[in-house]
């Protein structure tokens, strides 16, 4: 089966290459893989995700996502590639001047779906994350955990090929966390979505087979 993500001797750095965060990492992720990424705070988990959605160019090595070499991708190709990704940010990154419902369907809006479709999908997605009654509120009127679930719903909106999630349950209690894990398991199982999740705590009840990467001392290692 084909690799959705392939990294070879990948080095990531900030400050014009002076501050290296990840060095010489190599790994392959196939379609339908479910990957947990753990590691100490500041080890570079968010940095790795950032490079996967093209916000940070590799300093050295190869990084191929969805068949595109991210070192040489054009901005138009990157734009196209990103429409197949569902990204969940550690700091949510909701658009505060938009309602919750509008935030959730951002990927549908970008794909050019009609307002009717957007509305019904917003309804369906918010039901999934148990936020139906908050559709017309604004993000800043919600609690941290509620905002996080809006971010999850947004990432799932267009059935992405890849989900990149940064601490999607970081602010949630066990019940809400399980709701999120269920959604991701379903996406992976039913739609063969590739899922990468950064988390500090791998869920104890998890029915799918998964892979586990650890980021430590600038390296990315797989636990077997």
């Amino acid at each position, binding site marked *: 089966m084909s690799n959705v993500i392939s990294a070879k001797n990948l080095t990531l750095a900030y400050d014009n290459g002076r501050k290296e965060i990840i060095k010489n990492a190599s790994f392959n992720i196939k379609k339908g893989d479910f990957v947990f990424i753990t590691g100490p705070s500041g080890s570079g988990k968010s940095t790795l995700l950032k490079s996967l959605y093209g916000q940070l160019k590799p300093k050295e090595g190869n990084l191929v996502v969805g068949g595109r070499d991210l070192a040489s991708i054009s901005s138009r190709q990157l734009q196209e590639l990103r429409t197949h990704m569902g990204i969940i940010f550690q700091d949510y990154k909701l658009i505060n001047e938009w309602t919750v419902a509008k935030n959730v369907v*951002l*990927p549908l809006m970008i794909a050019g779906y009609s307002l009717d479709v957007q509305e019904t999908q917003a309804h369906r997605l918010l039901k999934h994350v148990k936020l139906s009654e908050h559709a017309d509120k604004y993000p800043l009127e919600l609690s941290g955990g509620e905002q996080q679930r809006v971010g999850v719903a947004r990432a799932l909106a267009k059935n992405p090929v890849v989900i990149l999630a940064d601490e999607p349950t970081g602010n949630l209690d066990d019940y809400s966390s399980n709701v999120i894990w269920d959604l991701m398991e379903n996406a992976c199982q039913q739609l063969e979505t590739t899922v990468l999740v950064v988390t500090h705590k791998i869920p104890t009840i998890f029915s799918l087979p998964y892979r586990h990467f650890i980021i430590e001392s600038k390296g990315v290692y797989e636990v077997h």
Partner: protein
Amino acid sequence: MKFIKNHLMFILPLMAILLGIEFYLVFDRTTDSYEKGLKEGYTMLVVAKKPVTLQKLRQLNPHIATLEAIKREQIVSEVAQGVSKQSKKEILAALPYFYNVGLDSYLGTAALEKIKKDLEKDSNIKRVETFGSSYSSAYRLFAFIKFLLKVFIGFMGIVSLFLIIKQMEIWKYAHRERMQVMEIFGAPLMLRAGVLFKVAIFDAFIATLLTSAVFLYVKFVWAAQSGIDLMMQKQDDLFKMTDMAILLGVALLLVIVAVYTVVFSSKGVQE
């Protein structure tokens, strides 16, 4: 309140530029004939012993464009009123030939002096009167006023442009986060900048309408009651509907350039 302030900060400098442009257009139109008169109404006086032709004068100096003989009989009848017919004939015979000489372009005092010298080289020509100083001072004053106006409008335009860019930077800051989020989800430029374009184009229309309203007021209300001859004669020239198209075109061009500047300079921002 904040909404209105945000728009005014953009509309007012835009209006300043449009008012400047429209003012210049109107000034140019209403004073056009005056300027032409100053430019073309000029003639120098040439006094010759025997009749001359335009070709002959042109050989002496190429700037000479027209030649018009002043009727000698008229001069005599005016100068010699009540003199006998015979004496009039004698005066006429002794009288030299007078000509108004027009030039092909507006020339300065020095150039006029040169023409005078060139013409006086010919022994047939007795005298050349250029009226140089009074002619050029009237035209120069006009040219100077027009130049000052251009400088003033240009200066106002530059200051306003700075204000527009400043306001755009505030917008950019206000919209930066949303534009980044949309970019990460793969939104094309037009969608990311859509709101900015909408707001800016809306403001361009408002600024054009307000500027037009000012000039329509001047045209139909103020000019009619002003008592200034030039204003009342040229009322039609004060504001034309085609001006509105010019102003709208300029306003749209300015805001689109401004939005593009903002959108492109916020691109590739890494947090």
